[in-house]
């Protein structure tokens, strides 16, 4: 087999060597990997911070940290997870690496803008680190609600400026991807032949583009209020603090769709491959992805039922929230229908995808309890909410990220990882996850508030138990990630198509060459036609 020089060996622009061939690269694949290592760093850090929080909560009263540190810790955990991990991870890592390949082209439309996005992302992270010092990291929660975010003496301005810079990176990435998909697809690939991961990135990019500026202006206003005291959110000066919440959630609700849509795209890629069967309802998934993007921008105030807004608003936003659940449910049905009567091949990507389907469904169903204003009154700002969003953001988007890692790892690095250790890590993670977060649903229903440093004695058992689950979960995460990283020590052994995929990335070598393809990729009439794959593997097994 002819060894094709991969993009690792060929820098672009060609004259740079060593570290500069990464820091001044225009290659979307290198940029994707630079994002990957940054994102994994932030994720690991935020996981450990979360572990510290749960360790503190395992016992009533102060265990090893004071209330002020606790408040800054959960704020930091949230800010890192939301702005430095979940929002960027899937688009910036896998969108960057695979979007151009899936549409058969050699890069994104604006390669230099792409590199700028990465630098903005790194700058945002550094600015967030800076806000840890002197007056201390904000203690407001990642939502930075006024009036406390205006009055607290901690480094709110620096931290929100970091979020502002990260938002710019997100917006520009969305801009780049939209232009790439519109202008650089292979001629034979019409809209209804685009792979579902690319479709999901397309929908996500519109949300990134249009929703992020709302939080940009909101964060600017927080900084202006802290420095100048205009009073736009201050009742003493004629302002309305609830308007801050409206502006904040106008972005932050669509933001959760930025988190989940690419994840759903990944699952839509993995399930057909490991069922050796075409995805059920390709068009329905396309329409539901775009619908989620649109409908998700209509429901933001379901985070505000108890804020003091009008009953009319409570009613309207609750009604609309039920609507947005429908397209998500359509996808879950499509995935399950794809598995049905498929020829199932168990592998770590599929295992993680199945865990995703379960965990995301639980998260989504508990979201209905929160979306319905009547029931929300009892569980708002309790641990029920904490459990809900960890099921959807972690069990959903997080697991999809892990699934994507396991699915595309051999393509990105040319090496296959150890399956057994991957399964053990995933099982520990999923089992630990359940033991960690299910108690929180119960604690929330029993009335334990979120973001509280201490709690009433009756909540002690649940918190203790949850802490144990966290331990298993964290071990599972690190085992899984280390297993992947350890595979990099091997020689390159992955073929161009280890799984039997049909999308264009499996038509090129692992890792791909600099310009993605050596021979022109063949665009199939339908992106999930597995007849060729089924024939190939039937022949192979006959030969054994």
């Amino acid at each position, binding site marked *: 087999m002819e060894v094709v020089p991969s993009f690792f060996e060929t820098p672009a622009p060609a004259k740079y060597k060593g570290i500069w061939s990464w820091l001044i690269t225009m290659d979307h694949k290198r940029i994707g990997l630079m994002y990957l290592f940054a994102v994994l760093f932030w994720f690991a850090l935020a996981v450990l911070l979360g572990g510290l929080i749960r360790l503190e909560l395992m016992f009533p009263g102060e265990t090893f940290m004071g209330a002020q540190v606790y408040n800054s810790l959960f704020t930091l955990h949230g800010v890192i997870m939301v702005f430095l991990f979940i929002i960027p991870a899937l688009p910036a890592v896998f969108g960057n690496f695979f979007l151009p390949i899936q549409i058969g082209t050699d890069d994104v439309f604006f390669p230099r803008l792409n590199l700028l996005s990465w630098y903005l992302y790194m700058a945002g992270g550094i600015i967030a680190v800076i806000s840890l010092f002197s007056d201390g990291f904000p203690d407001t929660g990642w939502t930075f609600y006024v009036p406390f975010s205006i009055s607290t003496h901690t480094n709110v301005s620096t931290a929100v400026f970091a979020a502002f810079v990260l938002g710019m990176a997100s917006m520009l990435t969305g801009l780049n991807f939209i232009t790439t998909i519109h202008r650089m697809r292979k001629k034979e690939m019409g809209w209804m032949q685009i792979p579902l991961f690319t479709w999901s990135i397309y929908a996500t990019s519109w949300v990134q583009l249009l929703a992020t500026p709302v939080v940009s*202006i909101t964060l600017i206003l927080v900084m202006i209020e802290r420095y100048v005291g205009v009073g736009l959110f201050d009742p003493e*000066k004629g302002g309305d603090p609830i308007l801050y919440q409206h502006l904040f959630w106008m972005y932050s609700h669509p933001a959760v769709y930025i988190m989940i849509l690419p994840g759903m795209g990944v699952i839509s890629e993995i399930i057909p491959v490991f069922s050796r069967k075409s995805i059920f309802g390709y068009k329905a998934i396309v329409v539901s992805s775009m619908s989620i993007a649109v409908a998700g921008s209509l429901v933001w105030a379901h985070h505000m039922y108890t804020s003091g807004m009008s009953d009319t608003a409570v009613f309207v936003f609750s009604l609309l929230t039920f609507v947005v659940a429908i397209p998500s449910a359509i996808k879950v049905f499509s995935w399950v229908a794809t598995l049905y009567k498929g020829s199932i091949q168990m592998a770590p990507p599929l295992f993680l995808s199945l865990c995703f389907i379960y965990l995301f469904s639980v998260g989504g169903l508990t979201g209905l309890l929160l979306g319905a204003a009547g029931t929300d009154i009892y569980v708002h700002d309790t641990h029920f909410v904490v459990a809900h969003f960890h099921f959807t953001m972690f069990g959903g988007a997080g697991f999809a990220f892990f699934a994507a890692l396991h699915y595309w790892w051999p393509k990105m690095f040319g090496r296959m990882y150890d399956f057994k250790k991957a399964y053990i890590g995933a099982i520990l993670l999923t089992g630990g996850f359940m033991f960690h977060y299910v108690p929180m649903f119960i604690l929330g229903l029993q009335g334990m508030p979120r973001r509280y440093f201490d709690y009433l004695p009756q909540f002690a058992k649940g918190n203790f138990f949850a802490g144990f689950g966290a331990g298993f979960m964290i071990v599972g995460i690190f085992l899984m990630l280390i297993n992947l990283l350890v595979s990099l020590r091997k020689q390159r052994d992955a073929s161009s198509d280890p799984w039997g995929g049909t999308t264009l990335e499996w038509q090129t070598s692992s890792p791909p060459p600099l310009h993605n393809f050596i021979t022109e990729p063949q665009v199939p009439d339908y992106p999930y036609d597995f007849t060729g794959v089924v024939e190939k593997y039937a022949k192979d097994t006959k030969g054994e």
Partner: protein
Amino acid sequence: MSSQTDESGKKLGMWLFLYTEIILFGGLFVLYAVYFARYTGDFIEGGKELNRLFGIVNTVILLISSFSVAASITAIQKKEKTRALAGLISALLCGLIFLVNKYIEWGHKIDHGIFPNSEKLIEGPPGQNIFFGLYYVITGLHGIHIIIGMTLLFISLVFVQTKTVTHTRFAFLENSGLYWHLVDLIWIFIFPLFYLII
């Protein structure tokens, strides 16, 4: 790479960026809408304190500058380099006059004790504080965008002069023009909402 010669793609990218600017200002217009409904009387009184003449002159200046920029894009496609340069210089002059006017207006207000967190505003009716708070934030952000737009127009001027921008390759000029028109568009809404309310 094909993207280097795809002028339509570059234009699409610029429009996408303009959408983010529209939404950025949009957040401020959300605040304006809510507070106008709540403090209509105070807003009307506040509007009276702004100088209409300045507002009208600034509006006319920006409209002329948009015309100039659009004309320079026609000129470059007709290979009329001098006209293109004239259009850009005229737009830049208009921008400069706008900024000077803004400086005079703000200075005048500040001299009369009307600025964010000033005693007069804190002690006055809350609606008036909000009106002027929004006035400074929105026109301030708009002014920053005028400066960015002028920078882009200036670079375009240099590119036209050095023939980096030509009658077949003028995406930079066109996109700078689009940005400038957006800044004009935002002012088209700011003007009546602050200067003409009764």
